[in-house]
């Protein structure tokens, strides 16, 4: 093993870390709705960070676009979010995303002064579980077809005031329809253009 002085090695490791961070930052700077069907961007509140500071944050898709998509194919580190400040790295924690609406990330300010960051999520009306090929789908009113047995599920956010969404599948003559109820609003998704 080649001997390297510790300060030099440490600083080199930091430089490599920043290179990696910038690589991930580049990946995350794509539009939040890229590749997400029936999507709208939902912008979160701007948060202030001190220099060289890390915070963990959980953000949620809400309203009539309650589904957060993570379309990543490698280790679950997706890019269906964006942020507005290059001082930051935003590293998604897919294993903490245990609710259909939840985005979880570790956010670090690598600049040498206070900075603000605003995160935008790509939020969909279509659950990631809807099996439409090539992301071709459309949103329709509830056709009130027969509900497929065993498909009714309720997902609630954790905490003292849970927010819940209900999902179910209906079988119509034209094919399967996938429905969601959120805050008394009901909509459905069918596959096809």
């Amino acid at each position, binding site marked *: 093993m080649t001997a390297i002085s510790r300060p030099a090695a*440490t600083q080199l490791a930091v430089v490599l870390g920043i290179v990696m961070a910038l690589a991930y930052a580049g990946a995350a700077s794509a539009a939040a709705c890229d590749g997400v069907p029936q999507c709208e961007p939902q912008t979160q509140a701007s948060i202030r960070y*001190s220099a*060289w500071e890390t915070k963990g944050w959980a953000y949620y898709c809400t309203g009539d676009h309650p589904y957060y998509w993570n379309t990543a194919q490698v280790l679950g580190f997706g890019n269906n979010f964006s942020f507005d400040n290059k001082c930051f790295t935003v590293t998604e924690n897919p294993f903490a995303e245990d609710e259909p609406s939840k985005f979880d990330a570790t956010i670090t300010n690598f600049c040498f002064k206070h900075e603000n960051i605003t995160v935008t999520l790509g939020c969909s009306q279509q659950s990631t579980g809807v099996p439409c090929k090539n992301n071709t789908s459309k949103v329709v009113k509830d056709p009130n077809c027969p509900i497929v047995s065993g498909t009714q599920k309720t997902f609630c956010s954790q905490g*003292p005031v849970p927010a819940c969404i209900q999902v179910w599948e209906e079988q119509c003559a034209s094919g399967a329809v996938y429905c969601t109820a959120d805050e008394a609003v009901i909509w459905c998704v069918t596959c096809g253009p």
Partner: protein
Amino acid sequence: MLRVNGDIVKAAVTVAAMVLAWSVTEVEGRNARALLHEHVFDTERLLDHTGSECVGVPDCVSVEGPVTVLGVDQIRVLAVSCPDSHPFGWHWDTEQHEHLHVRLVGRTRTALTFSMSNRADAAGQSRIFVGCSTQLFDVTRSGSQQSRSGVRSKSQFPWLLGGGAR
């Protein structure tokens, strides 16, 4: 033209960094965790209170918890409650040393519970601020901060960060 897969580059850089870190330990012949604790945290640097506890919180008042001092290897759990006038807890912030890790571990309608741990070889202190409202907290509309800590800054760029840098 040669094309390089971005994931491969990231993986290569990661492996290089790991080898480098291992080589440091090898050269020094010392425990890596001890090295991190002794030489990487700037135990004098304070992360200041940025007022995040009331961002986006309707009719918010900021409630300060007590100053908590953590010795080496100590972990403490602390609950901060909201007053009757503004009973519902929303967001939170801290003033804390870089080497402390503060984490939200529980939430009721009127109080937030935190764990605080010390990751270095010197004592540190933290004060927690909770944003309290007259309206119920709604996690899906506002999100929830989970943790706060400093990036290990000692010996990296001391001429820029310095002690107590903000």
